[in-house]
């Protein structure tokens, strides 16, 4: 059980976004194809579906490898992640010429702190719980 701590850290990291994205994508698919919602995000969906869970996993590996021994709070470390993911998401939409309504950008100054808070809480309580259960923190 106490072998391969980085593998367990990776698995603990990807668990939450994998489940959350499944719920979100199920809801989106219903709205998009049942109610004909007119925003075709299929073109950019590869980013949240593939990159984000892996980023969470690698972020947790980084934490276990370098920061846990220095007693850096997991919640604070997880709260930094949106500051990387939000610009990455923006870059993907620009690279794929995906048009984002201007209203979305107008609320970014409010949404980014909310995202940081959500990430802080999720990492502190949920990822922290999984890390403890898997014996890595």
């Amino acid at each position: 059980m106490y072998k391969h701590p980085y593998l367990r850290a990776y698995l603990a990291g990807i668990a939450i976004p994998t489940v959350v994205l499944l719920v979100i994508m199920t809801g989106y698919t219903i709205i998009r194809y049942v109610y004909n919602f007119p925003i075709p995000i299929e073109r950019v969906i590869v980013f949240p579906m593939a990159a984000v869970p892996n980023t969470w996993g690698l972020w947790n590996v980084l934490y276990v490898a370098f920061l846990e021994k220095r007693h850096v709070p997991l919640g604070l470390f997880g709260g930094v992640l949106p500051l990387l993911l939000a610009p990455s998401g923006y870059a993907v939409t620009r690279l794929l010429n995906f048009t984002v309504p201007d209203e979305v950008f107008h609320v970014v100054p409010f949404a980014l702190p909310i995202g940081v808070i959500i990430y802080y809480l999720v990492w502190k309580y949920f990822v922290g719980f999984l890390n403890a259960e898997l014996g890595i923190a």
Partner: protein
Amino acid sequence: MSDREMEEMKKLLKDTLPPVGDAELGHDLWPAMAQRLADRPLRVPWWDWVLLVGAAATILFFPGVIPALLYQL
């Protein structure tokens, strides 16, 4: 693969994998799990409640932030 080679392969596999023996659980695992959960009560400090309520209220009263939040997923 000939029959002889198959038999040799089976023998090698049997030699390599030890017999499982008694696979039944010796006792109920749930009491230990319940004890483990009880030993670690979840303590949520007041500032985390403030953050949670603030974030939930912002999303509730300003649902326009939701599309921007999706960028961070």
